[in-house]
């Protein structure tokens, strides 16, 4: 504007002193150009503003709400893993201006994990930057700031936080310092969680944190009470294969996975391979029903005398000494009768029955931490007979949970998944058993709980059905140890319309007064199943109802002698 004013003055003077027309035109032209130039500048500026600043501010790339790594939530949206901006306290030794000894003393008072001498050495080290504390609390940052030393620097860095601490630690896994998934779902979902286009949306797992919490607390209290080496528990949706809870004891805190006991990082549900014992019997019976070997519940199988094969002898804990019906076989958990059923099945059909359930492959689940089952190479007669009651084939508890889901859901085997499945999007799976077989197995499983070895798994009104499995653990020397057991209880509920499978396994429990110093599944794993179902059932939408149950009346007469 100043330019305009200056130029206008000689224009005024020109009026006083007439000049040649040419000069006037020239000046006019200059004025015109100046005006045109200024107007052009303004218009250009306006257009610039219009064109370049009218875009959506920020843009996706700079969206501060987009987390550096996507959230992981449970099936109901409860956050299980989040990225937060955590304070980091660092040290730049070169920028220290105060007395190093004094600074070191104050640092040692604030952060006692290192000694004063160590801090002094750090200041004297001559390095450019040293982390003093990552994920520092604001109070600590404030106190460190109060030292007033420019060499102590603070910044905010994205940190992975697991708000539920140890909950579902084995499922979630953890990340390294650079924010890359190292284990669990963090590792599986690495790409998805870092993808800028998708990381704004949290990933929903199939886990229900409330059920997970119930399972973890019940499992942990039992493992502690029975001084077991460990334990695992799985809750699986039989219709979709979603894992609603998967716990492994002992647990660890993924917020500080580095500090955890290495043994605790081991996920027994998918990495532990065990001979699961009698919990295999329903699988054998169902396969025999499919194969036409077991044709009727009233069919009698010999359990009179132990079977001798080579140097092995197959016997029963409570010998019945007579031929027994199929429900009796399951209710009393007779090894001898099951061995006869397996014998009638033959090696080929037994193998096929187990292959149908994926027992020869690693567990079908997203996690990378999964073990390959121990699938025997030679299927001699001894192997066939013992495999019928769960010896010789070692699988993970997750395998067993998937198999039981197929047993009770109408006969369809589905791979397990840790990601939430939208309604109607469940994997089609493959048919392993017929509907009729599945219904019969539901009756049998329910009877095991009402009349047999699984009584302690009953949860009033939840119509629990299931099978105990107590296997002798292979000791370090290679032989079986009679006193050290792997006690499993595989259950489903409610039996009239199965929705969830619950598998609980206790690794080497020791008896206490409560269990009468017994270590069998009926005394160790079954009560855990009962308590978990009682706690989790209502959360899962199963209303306990004492007036409902699956109809087993036609089978009850077949176990008339079941008084024990």
């Amino acid at each position, binding site marked *: *504007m100043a330019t*305009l004013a200056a130029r*206008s003055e000689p*224009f*005024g003077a020109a*009026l006083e002193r007439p000049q040649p027309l040419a000069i006037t035109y020239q000046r006019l032209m200059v*004025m015109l150009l100046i*005006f045109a130039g*200024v*107007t052009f500048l*303004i*218009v250009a*500026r*306006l257009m610039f*503003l219009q064109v370049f*600043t009218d875009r959506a*501010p*920020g843009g996706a790339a700079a969206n*501060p*709400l987009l987390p550096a790594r996507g959230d992981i939530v449970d099936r109901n949206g*409860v*956050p299980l893993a*989040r990225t*937060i*901006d955590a304070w980091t306290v660092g040290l730049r030794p070169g920028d220290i201006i105060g007395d190093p000894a004094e600074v070191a003393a104050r640092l040692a008072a604030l952060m006692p994990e290192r000694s004063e001498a160590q801090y002094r050495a750090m200041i004297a080290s001559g390095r450019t930057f040293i982390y003093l504390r990552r994920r520092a609390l604001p109070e600590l940052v404030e106190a460190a700031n109060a030292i007033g030393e420019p060499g102590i620097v603070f910044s905010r860095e994205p940190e992975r*936080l697991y*708000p*539920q*601490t*140890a*909950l579902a630690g084995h499922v979630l896994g953890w990340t390294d310092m650079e924010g890359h998934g190292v284990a669990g779902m963090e590792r599986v979902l690495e790409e998805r969680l870092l993808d800028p286009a998708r990381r704004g949306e949290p990933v929903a797992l199939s886990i229900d*944190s*409330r059920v*997970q*919490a119930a399972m*973890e*607390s019940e499992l942990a209290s039992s493992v502690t009470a029975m001084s077991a080496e460990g334990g695992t528990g799985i809750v699986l949706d039989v219709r979709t294969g979603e894992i609603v809870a998967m716990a492994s004891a002992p647990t660890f805190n993924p917020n500080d996975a580095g500090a955890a006991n290495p043994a605790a990082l081991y996920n027994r549900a998918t990495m532990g391979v065990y001979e699961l014992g009698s919990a295999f019997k329903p699988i054998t019976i169902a396969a025999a029903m499919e194969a036409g070997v077991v044709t009727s519940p009233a069919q009698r199988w010999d359990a009179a005398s132990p079977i001798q094969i080579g140097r092995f002898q197959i016997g029963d804990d409570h010998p019945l000494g007579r031929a027994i019906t199929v429900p009796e076989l399951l209710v009393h958990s007779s090894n001898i009768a099951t061995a006869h059923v397996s014998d009638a099945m033959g090696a080929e059909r037994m193998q096929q029955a187990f292959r149908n359930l994926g027992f020869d492959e690693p567990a079908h689940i997203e996690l990378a931490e999964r073990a390959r089952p121990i699938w025997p190479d030679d299927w001699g007669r001894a192997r066939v007979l013992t495999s019928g009651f769960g010896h010789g084939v070692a699988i993970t508890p997750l395998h067993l949970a998937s198999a039981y889901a197929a047993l009770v859901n109408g006969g369809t085997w589905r791979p397990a998944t840790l990601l939430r499945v939208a309604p109607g999007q469940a994997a089609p799976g493959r048919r392993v058993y017929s509907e009729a077989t599945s219904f019969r197995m539901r009756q049998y499983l329910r009877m095991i709980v009402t009349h047999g070895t699984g009584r302690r798994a009953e949860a*009033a*009104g939840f119509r629990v059905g299931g099978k105990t499995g107590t296997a002798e653990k292979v000791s370090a020397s290679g032989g079986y140890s009679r006193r050290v057991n792997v006690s499993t209880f595989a259950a489903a509920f409610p039996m009239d319309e199965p929705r969830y499978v619950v598998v609980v396994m206790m690794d080497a429990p020791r008896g206490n007064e409560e269990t009468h110093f017994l270590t069998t599944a009926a005394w160790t794993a079954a009560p855990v199943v009962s308590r978990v179902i*009682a*706690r989790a*059932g*209502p959360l899962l939408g199963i*209303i*306990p*109802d*004492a*007036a409902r149950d699956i109809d087993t009346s036609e089978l009850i007469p077949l176990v008339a002698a079941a008084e024990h």
Partner: protein
Amino acid sequence: MIARSFKSVVWVAGIGGAALGCYMLSLQVAAERAELAGVEQRIVRARQAIRDLQTELGTRGRLSQLEQWNSEVLALSSPVAGQFVESELVLARLETRSNGELAEGAPVRMASAETVATAPAPQVRNAAAAPPAPSAAPQRPQVRTASAAAPSPAVPAVRRASLSEATAPPAVARARAGTPPGPTRAVSLLDERTARELGEASRAERRRAPAAAARPERTTAATAPRPDRAAKD
């Protein structure tokens, strides 16, 4: 001549003014934009704060912590089968049982439309009609028995609906109001507090429509699904 020479000055001033105006406008726009950006930044900061606080709250109230509090202080346990009520009929039965003086076998019967027809005056005795005493235990069976007058045995749901509107324990009325007649399964978790709350809500609803409660033809109205009530529930 003077006018003509002034004309150019006016032109200069005019164009200068216009240019200035344009520039001011652009400045104004820029200032508004900056302010908008500032507001947006504040929104983002607020969202971040919300997220941080949610995270903190979630971490402090994590399930393991809740469980610890529960084991130390609250000692709550999971509900058992007896605490779930299958239908309003069972619910009515539950009410009589909790009232100690009543015989164990206090009858719950279907009431007919006649119950309502005999109408407002006697109904007032019912505890349900006395707003200030929500938990007052009624001294007689709350379910009025008028089964003798049942005109047609084929429509029990209908008659139950009319009963609950008029005389049944408030909790039943409430349970009924939200559901269309028919073989529905109203499964509800009932404890004393829930029952009281349900009762109060039911009474409040009734006060809102006192006129309707007096008319006998309401019995048929109550049998149809009532969208307004359903919406409130």
